[in-house]
């Protein structure tokens, strides 16, 4: 570790947490003081059933085989690990950067890992219908995909604002046979879509599974969704060991609810020399109040079943979040992230819309990869880390190595990016009734 700034004296909280066993297998319902089950009694029986069925499935080789088969033959796992030297020059001289390519999964993001796992559980529980929430549409598309594959009825709740912003993903879900219900109450975004999904679940819990898309919500969701995504970090670790024969110095991921970050962090939680960085949406800047930076601007609270950091007003009312990226636009964060922050195992920093879009542009130009704007927050975070990393030289004199989770691809974001960078002429479209204009 010489030559590299150490993680610092291990906090008492971290030592206490580590004494409780490996961090990577920490079980719910609580992660420190975070997590729990703050939901209507009507849902408790279903959560218990899910918890039981999930743990049975974990020890059932047939379940593991089927999930592994789908990963291999349907999703396209393992996803590649790509070194990006031209991008790395924008991070810092002498730093090597590797991207874990979750963007190459079927449906375009890491979301499919969790969706397939839960969908197989639904079949085991004998339920016939799944519901899901979606913001940008990535989790909704993944859920609609798995529902088509496994012959499940599927309803996706999406804020009316988001159905307008992401009309193409609405069409994708409908093509896949899902019913998409625009939510017209509250802020009409992801938070309200989750409220509506929870209401549906309360009413239809006997036949319906709520296929929650991230590491938030009531126990066992944070633990279970993490476990379905931990394959990301496990693969990346093995790929790096094969490629360069050692672990990365730091891992970076974007954090909305936090599923892709938990997925890549998990395999490294018990490797104390690997520093973990989560980048949340700083929106227009913390001072503007228009952001989704729960670790910078949030305080302990309960939303959607879990106790965690929460953007809230002095009364405890949920505050609207803001981000250029719909997938990071959520006022709370998974309880395990809150715990990792609290014990000092992971660091969380905000990245503004402007910084994320600049990193988005740079990756496109240097590597020929169009990232999701969510993932661009991790890239921007990596660029900001650059100067710190450049000073890290290991005992063996090796260059610092940074692993970034490229959680999704940017096809869905082309319209946003085109507007942001002013790529399309003002009136490019030939309107039917004024066809002679051009």
């Amino acid at each position, binding site marked *: 570790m010489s030559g590299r700034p150490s993680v610092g004296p291990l906090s008492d909280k971290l030592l206490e947490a580590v004494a409780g066993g490996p961090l990577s297998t920490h079980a719910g319902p609580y992660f420190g003081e975070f997590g*729990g*089950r*703050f*939901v*209507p*009694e*009507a*849902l*408790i*029986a*279903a959560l218990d059933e899910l918890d039981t069925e999930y743990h049975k499935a974990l020890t059932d080789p047939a379940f593991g085989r089927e999930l592994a088969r789908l990963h291999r033959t349907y999703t396209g796992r393992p996803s590649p690990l790509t070194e990006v030297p031209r991008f790395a020059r924008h991070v810092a001289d002498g730093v090597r950067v590797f991207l874990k390519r979750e963007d190459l999964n079927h449906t375009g993001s890491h979301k499919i890992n969790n969706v397939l796992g839960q969908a197989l559980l639904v079949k085991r529980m004998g339920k016939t219908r799944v519901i899901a929430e979606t913001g940008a549409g990535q989790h909704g598309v993944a859920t609609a995909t798995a529902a088509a594959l496994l012959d499940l009825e599927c309803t996706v709740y999406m804020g009316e604002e988001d159905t307008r912003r992401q009309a193409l993903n609405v069409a994708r879900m409908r093509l896949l046979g899902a019913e998409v219900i625009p939510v017209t*109450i*509250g802020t009409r975004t992801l*938070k*309200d879509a989750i*409220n509506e999904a*929870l*209401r549906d679940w*309360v*009413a*239809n*819990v*006997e036949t319906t599974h709520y296929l929650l898309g991230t590491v938030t919500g009531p126990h066992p969701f944070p633990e279970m969704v993490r476990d379905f995504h931990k394959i990301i970090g496990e693969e990346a670790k093995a790929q790096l060991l094969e490629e360069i024969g050692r672990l990365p110095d730091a891992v970076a991921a974007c954090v909305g609810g936090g599923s892709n970050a938990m997925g890549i962090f998990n395999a490294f939680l018990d490797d104390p020399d690997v520093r973990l960085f989560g980048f949340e949406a700083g929106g227009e800047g913390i001072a503007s109040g228009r952001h989704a930076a729960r670790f910078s601007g949030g305080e*302990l*609270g*309960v*939303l*959607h*079943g879990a*106790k965690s950091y*929460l953007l*809230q007003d*002095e*009364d*405890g*009312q*949920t505050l609207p979040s803001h981000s250029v990226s719909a997938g990071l636009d959520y006022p709370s964060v998974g309880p395990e992230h809150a715990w990792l922050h609290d014990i000092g195992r992971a660091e969380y920093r905000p990245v503004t819309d402007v910084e994320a879009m600049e990193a988005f542009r740079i990756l496109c130009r240097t590597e020929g990869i169009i990232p999701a704007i969510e993932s661009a927050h991790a890239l921007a975070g990596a660029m900001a880390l650059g100067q710190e990393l450049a000073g890290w030289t290991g005992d063996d004199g090796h260059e610092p190595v940074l692993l970034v989770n490229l959680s999704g691809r940017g096809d869905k974001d082309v319209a946003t990016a085109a507007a942001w960078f002013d790529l399309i002429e003002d009136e490019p479209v030939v309107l039917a009734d004024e066809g002679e204009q051009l």
Partner: protein
Amino acid sequence: MTAVGVRSQVAEHLDALGRSALIGYLPVGYPDVDGSIDAVRTMIDAGADVVELGMPYTDPVMDGPLIQKAVDSALTGGVKVRDTLRAVEQVAGQGAPILVMTYWNLVLRYGVDAFARDLAAAGGAGLITPDLVPDEAADWVAASDAHGLDRVFLVAPSSTPERLASTSAASRGFVYAASTMGVTGERATLGTRAEQLVADTRAAGAGRVCVGVGVSLPEQAAQVARYADGVIVGSALVRTLVEAPDAAAGRAELARVTSALADGVRSAR
């Protein structure tokens, strides 16, 4: 049935009635704070035996569209948690115990013990907590014991016998039985599950069980009152205010609907 020596305002009131009670829900701040206080008084005068005063919250996952609409409007109007405590103060002591219905984050944010202290000081009887199950309620159990407040937890048709027993044991005042799987709202028919749930909850040890979710008509109220200690009505009352052309007309319609429901409850034998 819980901590020895803590009296229950609501249980004593229900016992004194000697019949099933009409429990009416209204949210604070709709149409505005003073208007909601007037509406609660109207509801008590028209025959509500117990008041369930809703504290508006941005993410009410146990509430259907009608109540969502009213609380959304109340929040847009700027209603604060302190307004609920003021409203409790204004409507307590008029013959009907006041229970506050709240989602948990608002209490957590205020401070669980501080909220219990201030609610008790305002004359409130206790809390109904739709998203707090006893498993997560250690702080609230301690605070409600310390300040002599009732704690009404919910049971649902999906509750296991074990959970009916633990929830009954943790509750004070009554146990809130959700008649049907679903969120608040009016329903044409109530399933037979409500009556079974009440019987099962009593068998699991509950002293008093009141039924809510979906009760809206006087005939339904009469039917439920035959087997439950109380009939909880929300959306049907809120509707009178939401659909009224002005506040005075809203209160008149609220009085008429409350009175019809009260007659229904009283007709049950």
